[in-house]
């Protein structure tokens, strides 16, 4: 709980209805998915609860956020900002913290149809944004976590791969101008928003030095470097007709599949050949979705329960499947893309199983368009988390996949993670094969202590393997322990990252749990 006087001051900012320091509310915010794994890694009891924050506060605009941050500085209370709050990286790392829940900041500020960007606040969900921009024939990037999460959070603070990445890129690449409340409470406006005259949202980099790398780098700072209150994200042409008609009843909806969409699922048979296929297909710049998934994962994206997942063995039997979805707005475009795919299949001597061995339910296409496929990862055991996460060349990603198989099989043999034959991978192309990322989704049972501990151990071993075999930085290099582990192997970036933290957050007020802590000696030198 907060001191009475402190609570009063927070109440004065947002109103008493929008701040709460009682045990009921704060305990709920202490809970998150996968928290049991991170607790175990830290030598704590593997419960799904982190440290309980002192309070939760709900600001409604930038000015309120600024005041909250300044107050946190005054009382030396750390803040942890969150939008929809999915994932352990939303959790405070200390009880001396306040959660800034940005739910009330849910406006779409602007849709610039001509310049292809939208300005959004933190609690606009991907599905909400997409529903509005579809009216203009436009689309947005949504992270793999699903359409219910915040594109702002993904763009400014947290990773950002997505199923539609061949055409919509990665969240880090889609950020334009940003309104950023620094840990000091100052407002920083990045890009063209920072112009003194005619400021606008269209550019994330100029004038002057771009701070987007500092702001989020590859994996994002997860609230460790401030709070983002508005962001402009790039928009893209919607890939096909925007008619989105879903009928029937949950969960077996029917979808009027738009004209000019076609799915290909092809078995590349070996990882080496998959690399060729990926590069060759993406070279032609025709795909809306182009992902490699394991046999099991490919079965999962067409299922809505574990019971009907097992019906899809005609897909699961494929050794190294690639999932390609092409979509077009005109017949001419569609004919062209189909011709290219036909040419590629002949050239690469591959066969599409869709239409012969398997016909997906129409709802798959709705989920593909709405980027809802990632949530299928939870079907098997109810819990999953990814290891790896490297972003690199196709060759590197596949090397990472192959090397990981033996490690994963060890833990499968122990019965602590679900058996996907070690192959569990999601690898996606970005911007027509410009680069790739892979991650290894791993199913575990969050209610089973052995499974949680086994999963934690597997994740740590996977990180070690990334170092040992030079597989690039995985996703979850976050927090001091991992940065200090990886940094020395990666040009000591962790030292620079610490300097960034010290420069932007001299009072160490933004919760560093999933970012990096400042060097306390440095702070002492500065009288902090």
């Amino acid at each position, binding site marked *: 709980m907060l001191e009475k006087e402190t609570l009063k001051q927070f109440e004065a900012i947002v109103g008493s209805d929008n701040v709460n320091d009682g045990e009921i509310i704060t305990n709920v915010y202490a809970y998150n998915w996968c928290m049991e794994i991170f607790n175990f890694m830290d030598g704590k009891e593997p419960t799904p609860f982190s440290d309980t924050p002192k309070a939760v506060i709900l600001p409604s605009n930038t000015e309120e956020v600024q005041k909250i941050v300044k107050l946190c500085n005054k009382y030396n209370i750390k803040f942890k900002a969150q939008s929809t709050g999915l994932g352990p990286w939303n959790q405070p790392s200390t009880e001396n913290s306040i959660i800034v829940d940005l739910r009330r900041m849910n406006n779409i500020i602007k849709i610039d149809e001509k310049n292809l960007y939208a300005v959004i606040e933190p609690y606009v969900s991907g*599905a909400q944004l997409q529903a509005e921009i579809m009216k203009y024939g436009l689309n947005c990037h949504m992270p793999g976590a699903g359409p219910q999460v915040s594109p702002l959070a993904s763009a400014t603070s947290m990773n950002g791969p997505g199923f539609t990445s061949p055409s919509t890129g990665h969240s880090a690449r889609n950020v334009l101008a940003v309104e950023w409340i620094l840990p000091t409470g100052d407002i920083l406006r990045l890009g063209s928003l920072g112009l003194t005259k005619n400021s606008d949202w269209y550019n994330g980099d100029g004038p002057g030095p771009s701070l987007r790398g500092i702001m989020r780098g590859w994996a994002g700072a997860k609230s460790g470097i401030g709070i983002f209150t508005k962001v402009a994200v790039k928009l893209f042409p919607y890939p096909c007709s925007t008619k989105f008609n879903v009928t029937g009843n949950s969960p077996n909806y029917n979808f009027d599949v738009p004209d000019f969409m076609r799915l290909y699922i092809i078995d590349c048979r070996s990882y080496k050949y998959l690399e060729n296929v990926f590069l060759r297909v993406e070279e032609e710049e025709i795909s809306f979705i182009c992902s490699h998934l394991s046999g099991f994962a490919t079965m999962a994206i067409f299922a809505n*329960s574990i019971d009907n997942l097992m019906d899809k063995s005609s897909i699961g039997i494929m050794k190294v499947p690639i999932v390609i979805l092409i979509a077009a707005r005109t017949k001419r475009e569609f004919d062209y893309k189909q011709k290219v795919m036909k040419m590629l299949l002949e050239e690469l001597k591959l066969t599409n199983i869709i239409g012969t061995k398997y016909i997906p339910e129409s709802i798959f296409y709705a989920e593909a368009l709405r980027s809802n496929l990632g949530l299928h990862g939870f079907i098997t055991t109810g819990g999953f988390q990814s290891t790896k996460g490297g972003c690199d060349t196709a060759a590197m990603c596949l090397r990472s996949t192959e090397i990981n198989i033996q490690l994963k099989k060890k833990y499968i043999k122990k019965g602590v993670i*679900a058996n996907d034959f070690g192959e569990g991978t999601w690898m996606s192309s970005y911007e027509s094969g410009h680069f790739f990322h892979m991650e290894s989704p791993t199913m575990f049972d*969050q209610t089973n202590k052995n499974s949680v501990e086994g999963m934690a151990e597997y994740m740590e071993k996977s990180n070690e393997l990334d170092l040992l075999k030079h597989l690039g930085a995985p996703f979850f290099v976050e927090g001091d322990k991992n940065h200090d582990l990886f940094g020395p192997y990666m040009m000591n970036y962790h030292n620079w990252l610490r300097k960034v933290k010290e420069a932007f957050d001299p009072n160490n007020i933004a919760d560093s749990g999933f970012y990096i802590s400042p060097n306390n000696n440095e702070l002492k030198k500065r009288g902090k």
Partner: protein
Amino acid sequence: MDEEEYQKMIKRCLRCSICKWIPQIQIKSQKYASGCPAIDIYNFHPYSGGGKIILALAYEMGRIKPTEELRDIVYKCTVCGNCAVACKYMNTLEPLEIIMKLREKLVNTGCGPMPQQQAYIEAVKKVNNPYNEPHEKRMDWIPDDIILNPDAKMLYFVGCTSSYRRKEMAIAAARIMNAAGVSFNIFQNDEFCCGSPILRIGDTTAFEEILNKNLDIIESKGIETVVFSCAGCYDTFKVDYPLSRKYDFKVKHTVELFDELIESGQLKLTDNVPITVTYHDPCHLGRNAERYEDWDGDVVQLLPLVSINVPPKPKRTGSKGIYDAPRSILKKIPGLKFVEMERIREYAYCCGAGAGVKSAFPEMAIKTAKIRIEEAEDSGADFLVSACPFCSTNLQDGITDKNSKLKYFDISELILMALGLEGEKLKQATAEVA
């Protein structure tokens, strides 16, 4: 939900926030993407379906105590079931059942229900209705010209809200059945509260007593079909009663019966009703009115940590609610133009009244109603129609509070108009919107 299942399930929330929205692929606009009135109004995560699952876990782990604050959060919820529909699109959690079980636990510890809800439970025990009205006056709504048949095998179970508060609905239903020549009876002294208001706040012990009392009476009179015009009573009899005690008679809502009568020609809709309407799906007629199916299959462990159900376990996702019958009726009314809201069928937005919210948190009930009314206004309709007296009360209160130009009718009133039996009402209504 039994205790073992409850203890397992409360550990499985992924905190994905899906429960706050309507199913993702049904979202058509930013404005109408949300599905949960509680979190829409109160904003803190514990108010969501997933938030209440975490509350349940924290409570079981002893991290939180049964306090007034806990009670308030748990009862600021209409148990509309949207969270369950949204979650179960892909997951196998049962947010709604967990909330109900948590309420049961709070009642058992004496922490729940809310004082206003306790008052109406006492009223039900004393005078057989939650409105504390005299039981003898329950059937005062019956006009003299309504024809009843004491030997009929069909019973019209009117319900407390229609009997005491929304008499126009009961009168309309009875007149329609007379017009169709349907032989039916009403238990004039032997109709008692169905128990829904008590069940929804978690007093399962009191509910069991009411359930048995009602079933004893109905079964003793050889009734073959029970018809309801109240969605709450319908849902309670259809879905909740069989969980404790099976019975042989059929249950129907009046929209199902009336649709059949129109289809068979027993009801002839001849008069023009030239209005534009939109239909609000009551939670208790829609997504919650889906029976539990027995399953005696096997759980087969395919792999360590991975089990499947053989055959697949039925999942209540709201798909078997009553959605088509009311729409079919509306489309058959001559001259009537029907438009849909964005959130409909199993993902309809709640009216805001249910599960004791109207009595314990009237401001929440009205705010929710106003959200729904704005959605009805945005549909382009002049009239809002539904098939539940509770929705009727709350939505009309919302219309008044919002100073909305929208008018409200129960679907049975529109049928009467189309039968030529409510000419004055129709005339007045069309004049008001002209």
